[in-house]
């Protein structure tokens, strides 16, 4: 194994992340916090704030990578109720960066929200936080209260007469609510189902009003951009991916965790340097941007720059910036099943290809692992992924089809092998998988009964 390359973090959002008490408004202010908000409200017109954000080239950190400033500029001007929603429903397997940002530095986010609200002309803001982030929700509640007390939120922010209200709303446990329009429906008290687009939320979002929706990390960048200027921000990263990125690295690495790096550094530095590499095992593949990104093999991906454009070019995506590393022990068929199961579980069921395609894929992969699949099934798995892709109401269906499709494509021999003998369990590592032959009759009957209960609720 090659020696770990030199690797270092570039900390902007994480600048004082290890400071105890950073979550308190006192410490945050002592360390220079809530200065950008003064600049944005006292020295800059809303249009100037918006211009600064647009010029910074900041791209959304939630997955799609769309220009944040441009998105904010889509909101119509004029006097009407406008909304800003911070998407803190971080639920994708492999992603845990927002959790740390909110837990350790909530005021950075709140400051970012207030400034972004000014840029977009929104005065009602929400943080839609994943329900399971209980601790982080409490911390945000506390921080919001402090910000109100300090006069950064409320009817007159910094006595300027500008109103910005902020409410922390806890989700009820659905990955789909991280999809921006499902988030809006859920926030309105409805079933969290994605809406048809257009109209886009910037035109008709929460309660029918123009709405800006941004990820936690995106908004956490805002105080820095406004405080130090777009030009300063653009020094970091690449031309098309300016700034830094908090990357969650997990899987088969020695030091899983969040690392803030400049966009564009070699991916190898992240995996083998910062995260310490694998336990002397070869990397089979990795997800460069969360579980919805097509996997890249080590050869394909390790030497790519970690940037939006490079990952896209390689046929994958940077997504939310979450790297999941799988070493040589990993059964790709098991990985495909695990991935498909997640999306099957989380599909909202509104549109047909996603609802039935995820279900069907899971069933076929399960059979494959038991050694009960046929070569036709392998073709069908590939074809089903293709049939899902591009035909769904939102991106959840594609989020399964893309990684599973990439696994079938890149590791076809492994699937073909599974057709023959199934996938045996590897020291329990692959979730207790077993070959069809090894499974006792009784066990299989029990499992099928479980399956029925789970899927059909009929027993």
């Amino acid at each position, binding site marked *: 194994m090659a020696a770990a390359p030199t690797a270092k973090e570039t900390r902007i959002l994480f600048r004082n992340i290890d400071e105890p008490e950073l979550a308190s408004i006192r410490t945050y202010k002592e360390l220079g916090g809530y200065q950008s908000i003064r600049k944005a409200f006292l020295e800059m017109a809303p249009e100037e704030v918006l211009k600064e954000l647009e010029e910074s080239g900041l791209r959304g950190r939630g997955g799609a990578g769309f220009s944040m400033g441009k998105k904010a500029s889509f909101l119509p001007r004029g006097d009407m109720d406008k909304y800003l929603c911070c998407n803190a429903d971080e639920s994708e397997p492999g992603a845990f960066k927002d959790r740390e940002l909110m837990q350790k530095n909530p005021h950075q986010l709140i400051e970012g929200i207030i400034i972004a609200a000014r840029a977009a002309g929104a005065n009602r803001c929400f943080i839609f936080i994943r329900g399971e982030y209980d601790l982080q929700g409490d911390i945000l509640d506390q921080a919001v209260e402090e910000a109100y007390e300090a006069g950064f939120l409320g009817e007159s922010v910094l006595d300027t007469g500008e109103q910005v209200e902020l409410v922390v709303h806890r989700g009820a446990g659905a990955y789909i609510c991280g999809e921006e329009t499902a988030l809006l429906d859920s926030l309105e008290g409805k079933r969290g189902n994605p809406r048809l687009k257009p109209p886009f939320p910037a035109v008709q979002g929460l309660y029918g009003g123009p709405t800006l929706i941004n990820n936690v990390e995106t908004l956490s960048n805002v105080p820095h951009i406004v405080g130090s200027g777009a030009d300063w921000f653009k020094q970091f990263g690449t031309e098309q991916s300016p700034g830094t990125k908090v990357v969650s690295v997990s899987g088969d690495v020695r030091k899983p965790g969040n690392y803030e790096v400049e966009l564009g550094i070699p991916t190898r530095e992240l995996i083998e340097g910062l995260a310490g590499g694998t336990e002397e095992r070869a990397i089979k593949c990795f997800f460069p941007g969360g579980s919805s990104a097509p996997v890249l093999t080590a050869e394909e991906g390790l030497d790519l720059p970690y940037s939006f454009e490079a990952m896209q070019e390689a046929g994958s995506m940077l997504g939310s910036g979450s790297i999941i590393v799988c070493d040589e022990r990993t059964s790709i068929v098991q990985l495909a099943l695990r991935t498909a199961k997640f999306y099957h579980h989380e599909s909202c*069921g509104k549109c047909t290809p996603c609802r039935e395609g995820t279900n069907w894929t899971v069933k076929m992969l399960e059979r494959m692992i038991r050694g009960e699949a046929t070569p036709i099934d392998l073709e069908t798995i590939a074809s089903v992924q293709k049939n899902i892709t591009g035909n769904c109401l939102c991106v959840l269906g594609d989020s399964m089809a893309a990684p599973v499709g990439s696994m079938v494509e890149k590791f076809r021999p492994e699937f073909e092998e599974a057709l023959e003998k199934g996938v045996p369990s590897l020291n329990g590592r692959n979730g207790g998988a077993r070959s069809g032959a090894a499974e006792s009759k009784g066990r299989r009957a029990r499992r099928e009964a479980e399956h029925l209960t789970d899927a059909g609720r009929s027993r």
Partner: protein
Amino acid sequence: MSQPIRNAVTLVVDGREVVAPEGTMLVDAAKMGDIEIPVFCYEPKLGPPVGACRMCLVEIEGIPKLQTACSTPVRDGMVVYTQTDQVKEAQNAVVEFLLVNHPLDCPVCDKGGECPLQDIAMGWGPGKSRFTDPKRHYQKPLELSPLIAIDRERCILCYRCVRFSQEISEDEQLVLHERGDRSFVGTFDDRPYIAPFHGNVIELCPVGALTSYSYRFRARPWDIEQAGSICTLCPSQCNVAFTVRDERVMRVLARDNKAVDDGWLCDKGRFGYQMLSGSERITEPMVRAGDGSLSPVSWEEAIRMAADGLRKAGPRAAALAGGGTSNEEGFLAQGLMRDALGSGNLDSSPNAPDPQLLSELARPELAAKVSDLDYAGGILVLGADPLHEMPILDLRIRKAVRRNGTRLLVATERPSALDGGAATDAVRYAPGEAIAFIESLAGALGAEGYEASGRYAKDAAAIADALRAIPDSVIVWGERLWRRPGAVKALHDIARALQMHQRIGTGLLEVPEESNARGLREAGFLPETGPGYRTAAAGKGAVQIRDGLASGDLSALLLLGSDPVRNYPGGETWRRALASTFVVAFALTEDESAKHANIVFPAESHAEKEGVVTHPDGRLQRLRRNVPLPSGVRPTWWALAEIAEALGTNVDYGTPEDVFAALCAEVPFYGDTAYEEIGGRGLRWQERDPGSSWVPQPTGGGDGTGVPAYAPPEGEGLVLGTYKDIWAAEATRRNPSLRFLMPTQRLELSAKDAKTLDLANGDPVTVSADGSRLEARVSVRERMRPGAAFLIEGTETDNANLIATGEPRRITVERRPEPETNGSASGGGGNGRARVVATPMPAEGAR
């Protein structure tokens, strides 16, 4: 808000040039070029598209991804392909996905043969599924409601039924539980889905997941015939199609007509067909013997006896017509009374409309049509509760509010289904005090001769401000306002003050008490008013007929589907009056009034009748015979003509069409309208010459002035109002499937009065007024005006009409002991409805 003007745009679909209005969805535009794009979830009646099923994916030039045609509005120059390989692949994929969890039990499925899923799978599917794993299993069928079975395995999760419940009827009972492929349609806590419009979900369902218990396994599409007619069970006059097998009506479906019903039906209309072939139906003429028993006689004999009896009474005869009576029948009957008997004693309503005002209000320029509601800036619902009186109007009003932001104002004596949710303003006046409110409103709007003062001045001022601020308003008002003619006069003056006669899309829309009330008025079935609102010789109205019969001044009564004992105020007086009179009744079943008839003729049902009825907005609509007359039944129009002939008048009609022609000759605004012109969609006479320029001639009636000022009834106690409940009707009683909905009497009280009287929900009470009494249970309601109390008219027992006189009156309420609950008939205290609602659905098994 007025209806948006839409320009035409040109696009190309599969090489064909198509012209469609701007904003049309691609699916609909393609149809204009004769190109079908398959859909499941798309249904414009349900509001904006949701794009859930993904069946309608098409290729649009310049857009890399396939787009859903249901949600893509057309643009000029758009080039669309619906047949390319990419599209076909997507269509095949979606059909295959839809069938992954569909059981394909078509041979035993009611929908088989008329199933969109079958059609689309055949037309756009791959023909074969690659899915080999076990499918989703549920217990099936489950009782979604006592009327609907749900098979969740067949469900393709298109969301249509849920959207109906959430966004059309707004009962919000149907929801999707769970997530992903585990999703299923149901209600909260498995409660039965009980709502007045819920049957529509059966028709919306594109598969066999929602089926009607009363139609399940009764017929296959190739066994049935289907034809259109009009439902005359209420004034909505919805356009329906009767499904007929072996000469029996097996099902009622909506026959979309935007101008009338928007494609919806209420459950009474949808499920109220079992009575048409029920055993209780009268199918031959009968004569009552001295001991009260009925025995059949021949038609000739019955006609002779009826003619003899009526001839004997001569000018002392009277006639009442019910809402199911067609214009032709009304016309013939009024001719029979006036020409053959010299009697002008005929009426079709207990509410005594003023002839002069009636014809004034019939002016085309003052009339609003149903579709005006869609884009009205505001709607004032005055003295009416559409849900109970004209149910489809309730949906129409909700639609205007939900989709077009119409402002809804409500002013009623009883809390209506519309306030509290859709309505922004709700005024509650005391029972009988509508006139006080309306006169204040007229004053607040500056109508001449009214003062903006009085008890309701403040409420009236608020409504007036709202109406003034909204240019195009429609006032939906209840027929009961006629009980004080001054009220309707003031309403008329309000319409003028709002310049309604000079604006398009505004006007008045009356909610009559009975289905064809308007048609009967136009045909002259009113005292003092002949066909076409022309002055006729004086005669007695309903109330005087009752008193005349009771006192012996009148000696014979002809009933055309009218049941005054049950439906008119003073039911007990009617009963006594009928008991001592020679009564000829045309009736479907032996109803409360027909029980006292000396001669009973079998009447035609609305599925059997040929004729014309008039919708409350002036639309002439044709009833057509969908099923043959039951053996022994003959057309009512023919019988009336025969009786008239036996009485010596010279009538010679071969068909109902001949009768209609004769009617048209007497009604100037009908002109020479022919049956063919009315067609399947109806025809508003106001929109056709000479009706469009019709001007009422002065008639003999008063002008509504000189009415004594209203004074609340003297004495102490709550003031009683009564109302019609949608389910307190003959159709509920005669249809086994609907019987569970028949309400038992309940006394509605405000929370304040309930507290004063120390009564709680469900407490049994005795309600009495001047010696008449009935039993009821207490129902404490929100938004009730303290001091008021309400009872339901037309219940099977303890009918409010036993107490009601048509005027507000004071009542005494006393708690009575809880009746024994051993299941025996316990007077009015039964709780049939409550029991059904409280019974949980059969459990689905351990969860």
